[in-house]
């Protein structure tokens, strides 16, 4: 009986010790991957384009495309053609730009072609500027921001602006003010604001509080780091970043499920690019200043 068991074991070992190779990529088709976020502040609107790849970790040369043609049709039906450019360190994307684009409220359409082989398109809506109101109270500033109907996500960031001197040259700089602090024993962690959902169905303004203690904390940090005097601190600048629906959904699908131990395989992929991947979105950035 022992001989039989040992024989069976050897047979099992003989047939099963090999490891299988297989590919997790299935039904691959070449596609365009497009990233364009229309930014009301930008002099140049930058688009990044890549080819969908059939394997991970390919050389950058395998990711970029030839014969790209990119058109943006503005709200008046005028076509704007993007031109090739290069950005330092960005070799895995085709980078193109269009300049002097005066963004107006309305719908913009994007068309991307790579020769006669690949094409993709999408639309996005750009809305009106937002109004920022600042009220001062005993211990904090209250910021109210008017809401745009197309805004899906909002991020309000505030910065302390200051001048510093490097090698005799005066440079303007700024440091972000934390929205709150987390204290755990002797550890203090600065917490900065993240994108939040702005519910377009509720017709009210967005309200953000900036505590004086956070401003004082940031000023002290600047003074300690750059060895400047209090008079060199000029102002506080408040930015409101308003994300359109597509950009917000893309970010949320990207940010989700960040637990370090959970392993999820069904990460959602949001894209509004027809026949492609990536996102065509719009961001509205408005700002105001206050004297500290």
């Amino acid at each position, binding site marked *: 009986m022992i001989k039989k068991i040992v024989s069976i074991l050897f047979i099992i070992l003989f047939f099963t010790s090999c490891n299988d190779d297989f590919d997790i990529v299935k039904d691959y088709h070449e596609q365009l991957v497009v990233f364009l976020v229309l930014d009301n502040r930008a002099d140049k609107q930058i688009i990044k384009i890549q080819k969908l790849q059939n394997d991970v970790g390919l050389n950058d040369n395998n990711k970029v495309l030839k014969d790209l043609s990119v058109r943006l049709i503005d709200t008046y039906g005028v076509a704007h053609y993007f031109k090739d450019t290069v950005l330092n360190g960005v070799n895995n994307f085709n980078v193109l730009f269009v300049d002097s684009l005066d963004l107006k409220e309305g719908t913009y359409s994007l068309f991307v072609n790579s020769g006669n082989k690949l094409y993709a398109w999408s639309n996005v809506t750009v809305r009106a500027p937002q109004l920022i109101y600042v009220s001062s109270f005993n211990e904090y500033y209250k910021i109210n921001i008017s809401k745009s109907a197309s805004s899906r996500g909002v991020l309000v960031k505030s910065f302390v602006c200051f001048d510093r001197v490097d090698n005799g040259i005066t440079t303007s700089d700024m440091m972000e003010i934390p929205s709150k602090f987390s204290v755990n024993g002797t550890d203090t962690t600065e917490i900065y604001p993240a994108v939040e959902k702005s519910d377009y169905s509720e017709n009210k303004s967005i309200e953000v509080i900036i505590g004086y203690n956070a401003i004082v904390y940031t000023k002290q940090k600047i003074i300690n780091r750059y060895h400047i005097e209090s008079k060199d601190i000029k102002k506080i600048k408040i930015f409101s970043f308003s994300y359109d629906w597509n950009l917000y959904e893309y970010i949320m699908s990207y940010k989700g499920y960040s637990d*370090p131990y959970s392993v999820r395989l069904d990460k959602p992929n949001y894209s509004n690019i027809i026949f492609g991947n990536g996102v065509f979105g719009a961001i509205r950035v408005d700002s105001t200043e206050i004297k500290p």
Partner: protein
Amino acid sequence: MKNILKILLIIALLKVTLFCIESNSIKGIVKDKQTGETIPFATIIVENTKYGTYANTNGFFFIKGISDGKFKVTATAVGYNKKTIEVDIKKGETISLSFELEPIPIELQGVTKVSERMKEAYKNEISVQALSQQELKIIPSTSEKDIFKLIQILPGVSSTGDVTSQFYVRGGSGDQNMILYDNMMIYSPFHAFGMFSIFNTDVIKISEMMTGGFSPEYGGRLSSVMNIISKDGNSNKYSGKLNIGNSSAQALVEGPILGGSLISSARKSYFNNVFKKFLGKNVPLDFYDINSKLTFPIANEGKFSFSAIISRDNINQSAISSPNYLWQNAAVGTNVQVSIEDYYLDVALSFSFSKAYVDYKGFQGRQNSENRISNIFFDAKAESYLFEKDILSYGFSFILPRTEYSFQNSSGLVVKNKLDQQESGIFVKYRFGRIEGLGVDVGIRSNFEFIAENISYAFEPRIKVTYQPFHFATLKASYGRYHQTMITTSNEDDIIPLFEIWLPVEKPYYPERCDEYIGALETDLSDNLSFSFQGYFKRFTNLLGYNLKKKNSSDPDFSSGTGRSYGYEFFLKYQDESLYTWINYTLSWAKRKSDRVKYSPKYDRRHIINILSSYRLPYDIHFNLKWELASGTLFTPVLGYFDRLDLEDFSSNNYYYDTGSSYGVLGSKNASRLPWYHRLDIGLSKSLTIYNSFALNLKVDLINLYDRKNIFYINKDTGEKVYMLPFMFTFFVGLEI
């Protein structure tokens, strides 16, 4: 409540008026003489008559319909010397007997014959496997002896990896398994990310695994019922065990107390290297559990017991960016089992609690997550022994679960909720057993669910037929309808789910439902060889799952779908004095449809073969072997890769210079299958007696002997393959006093 009591009263009156024929009866209990522990499945026969029966899981038996006169009644159980008691029974009399059987030393015989004894006791059941302590001993173990690991190699049961004890029965999801421990409902019975169960195997007397054809006394789950009954403890003398294994140490004490018995075991982890092998990363995991039971005999072959189980796992990390985790289980319950005239009553009341907590320490403003479920469970059932082998069973149960959760979802919103639910069930079952070779169980169960002022009602017919045309072959068939109102939000794509929330099914959704059909053939090919075949078909409706088409955060999280599963199970068992072997093969399909998306769940493994064997070598050393071969689990393939940009922060020029990180675009859900899974584990075990009252148990196991690289999962973004357990050497040393 009033309606339920009225219905029960009517059933009892019907029983009295229709079936109460005055006849002679013998009832009693079978116990181990040394420990006082009741012996399940002992055979009791009235010599030179056709009368005989098997003791139930509590060692209780009842024989009805015996004529007047003197008889010899014999109780036998493998591992024990048989005992005969003479009785003189008079007309209309019920005699109570207590058999105290003297144990004889057995090792391998215990495995073979105990399982044979169980097979006979479950001959009227379908799709039930009873697992004994002896079978648990022979299975090679990676770190902890675990009842769930044994379950995973039963026919019809599949799992998704070495790392998890979660199991899937006949195409059902993991939350469709009911886990009862001494009649306490345990919701999250796992340690260490689900690597093994919280049940200490040394205190388990017997486990019944029902993969289908549930009796009407069970309700609330669609796919399986696992009924674990713990030992009562030694009521005659104090004894103890100390076990040391790879990852934990455990101690067990038992002995007489206040006229009853106590058994208590505690286990504590101490070694993290094993976890590192499981998870591929260093995890400061710490856990403990305590299982205790107090039992007191009461009149009429009865007993009163009080059980408690506590478990706690935690991961505490020093870095502020690393969250702390906590998982807790606690359950306490009482059971009363008593025989009054020709009734056998079983009443249980329990409270169970399960909690998971993630402390993010305020890092990046993330809110802590908490999820808890507490449950009060009352269950009362009665068996009434009628003419010859006919039995009428009836009872009712109340389940009062409360679920609370609070977490920050992927859109950054804090979601909080607290839900109270009431669920009650009533059942009646008639077992027709008076015709030799034919058994028919007919029953119904009605469930009522109350939640948020809504009431739902479910009606569940159940029928089971067994027919033995030849002494060596039995045909079986069953139909049952089951409903489930408590589900988990766990996603089957969560490879390691950390935060599983139980929720009641609320309007606009309906309770999940399953209609199940089973056919089976069981044969004894020789004295040593038996074979069984089962085929099943299950149709699921109202299955709640993640909304696969969810694109926007305002879309509903869930969608209601349908499903079906079907398959064939073959089970071959050989046993002689030296060798115990089982081989099973399962061929199965599981399918789901939700929002017009058709897919098969991840655990739909087409072919599964399991071999479990134990061979007795010279010097009473046991050679144990387990080999598993299974189709790979399903996974969602990648359509292609691109470098995905993080577009959140536009306060700097990050957007322009971001080169992105690799991201895989997913294709159709679960459209591809991983390569075959197979693994061979072998081990040796030996028990040494040191002096008279000390025993040393030694066990060494070689896990994944040929170091098969079974794929656990593939990181879709990087293409990295994460493998299951590599070759491992494990050991176990136990000292018994």
